[in-house]
């Protein structure tokens, strides 16, 4: 029906004189997992901010599920099904683990229901929260403050919270930054579960070895442009990748 789920065309974004994104275009079909790599300052997070609505692009369009969302507010985009997992963790540390799940499950309720939830609703939500938490082995910690969780557990909780909220597209910004190697496997396992459920995933990572295992495609950003776009094997063996990451530009300049 609509093979392109998320379409970004000619996206530009600048802060004052500094242009961060210089015409990024890409199309992501439903169910695909796309890895995004690039050196620091190449515009990866800014691209995510534009997609989720925290930065308004100065040019270009973002079309999601056949709707132009370029100028739509962040929370409305989220309700459309765009899920964002933040680099510095978006978990609410002052809330308990369970409350983090509940507030995600409750965000689609009407305002009246937010003030006066039905009794049956409450029990049902808590049950649902427990089921999601058991998927990441955090059900025993549901009453703990989320701030007491480890870096890896925070990632898992935020991804599951985004899933519970009902996201179709997951924008994962460095989901393994500051995560122990063992937990890294858990994050990979959870991403695999998202794939099984047919979710569309865009993931920013520095570790190409980590993402090539589960990405169908890798975008390489540099200087606010897409410089490479292809299957992991092709991108990995491309000499330009070395140049971008290690600044070995002598050959390309000549």
């Amino acid at each position, binding site marked *: 029906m609509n093979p392109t789920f998320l379409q970004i065309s000619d996206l530009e974004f600048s802060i004052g004189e500094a242009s961060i994104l210089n015409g990024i275009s890409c199309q992501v079909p439903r169910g695909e997992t796309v890895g995004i790599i690039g050196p620091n300052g190449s515009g990866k*997070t800014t691209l995510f*901010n534009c997609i*989720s*609505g*925290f930065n308004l692009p100065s040019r270009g369009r973002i079309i999601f599920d056949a709707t132009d969302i370029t100028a739509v*507010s*962040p*929370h409305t985009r*989220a*309700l459309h099904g765009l*899920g*964002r997992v*933040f*680099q*510095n*963790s*978006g*978990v*609410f*540390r*002052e*809330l308990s683990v369970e*409350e*983090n799940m*509940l*507030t*995600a499950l*409750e*965000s*689609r*309720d009407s*305002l009246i*229901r*937010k*003030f*006066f*939830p039905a009794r049956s609703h409450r029990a049902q939500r808590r049950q649902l929260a427990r089921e999601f938490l058991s998927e990441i082995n955090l059900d025993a910690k549901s009453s703990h403050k989320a701030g007491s969780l480890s870096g890896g557990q925070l990632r898992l909780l935020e991804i599951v*919270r*985004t899933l519970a*909220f009902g996201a179709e597209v997951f924008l994962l910004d460095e989901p393994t930054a500051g995560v122990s190697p063992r937990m890294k496997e858990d994050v990979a396992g959870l991403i695999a579960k998202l794939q099984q459920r047919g979710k569309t995933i865009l993931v920013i990572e520095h570790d190409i070895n980590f993402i090539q295992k589960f990405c169908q495609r890798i975008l390489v950003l540099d200087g606010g442009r897409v410089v490479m776009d292809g299957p992991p094997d092709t991108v990995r063996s491309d000499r330009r990748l070395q140049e971008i990451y290690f600044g070995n530009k002598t050959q390309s300049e000549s």
Partner: protein
Amino acid sequence: MSFLQALLTNEYYIHLVILICIYALLAQSFNLTFGLGKSFNLAHIASYAIGAYTTAILAVDQSRSPLPCMFWSLVLSGVFALTIAIIAIRLSEDYFAIGTLAFSALITALLVNWKSLTRGVLGIPGIPRPEFSFFESQTFYDNFNFLGLAATVLIVVELLLLGIFSSPYARALRAQAEFEQGALAIGHNARVLRTISFVLASAIAGLAGSLFAYYINYIDPSSFSLTEMVFIITIVVLGRPGSFWGVNGAAAFLVLLPEPLRQFDLPPSILGPMRQLIYALILFGVVFLNRNKLWPRLRRI
């Protein structure tokens, strides 16, 4: 029980309990915006003033009965908050506090200078105690009966707030206070959530202002100065922001705190400043001890 009877037959104690009711209303509503939502709304005292003046003007100049007076106090204070929200909700953290401070100053200036309506610094005397037609046997001229009215209002409002504090709405409000983008990313409309908290809190402050005007019978701009705002902040900070019972306890504690001083036969010129000093020291001490906890650490995306 006899102790309670002795307590409540003493006019002065009744006076103190009525004050506790009024300050509990003010503090608990401030607790909704500041405690849960972490929005530092310094115009809260202006909402209280609007409520008090609305009741005073309607009751004295228009001879309106108490229910419409209280109703309009509540509504106008709510509308005032809505106006602030529409203008200032875009401002974040410190900027919001400064913006609301400007609104507070604006209301004070109006109270002092719009003399045809507010009678300026002279204030409005002779506000009659409320009389309800369905309470024929009781007049609220009697302080004991007025305490009944104030306590009823407090209990109704607190039951409402107790429900709100544990509702999904409060959860979302706390979430957006900690990390606004995080709340937006799961579909919460943070500005609407905050606006609702202002309007609710301001309406409650307006109701408290109405009770205050009826109780004191005379109001002037000095009752709604920033010193009062500092007192409300002290109550909420001492009671722990976001804690429903803590703030109730702190309201009672801080209203009663200066009372032992009266035993020392100090002249009023010393007693007044001494109270302010005690409150200021408590506020400073509690803020100092909680300096890492009062506001969440800002997160960047």
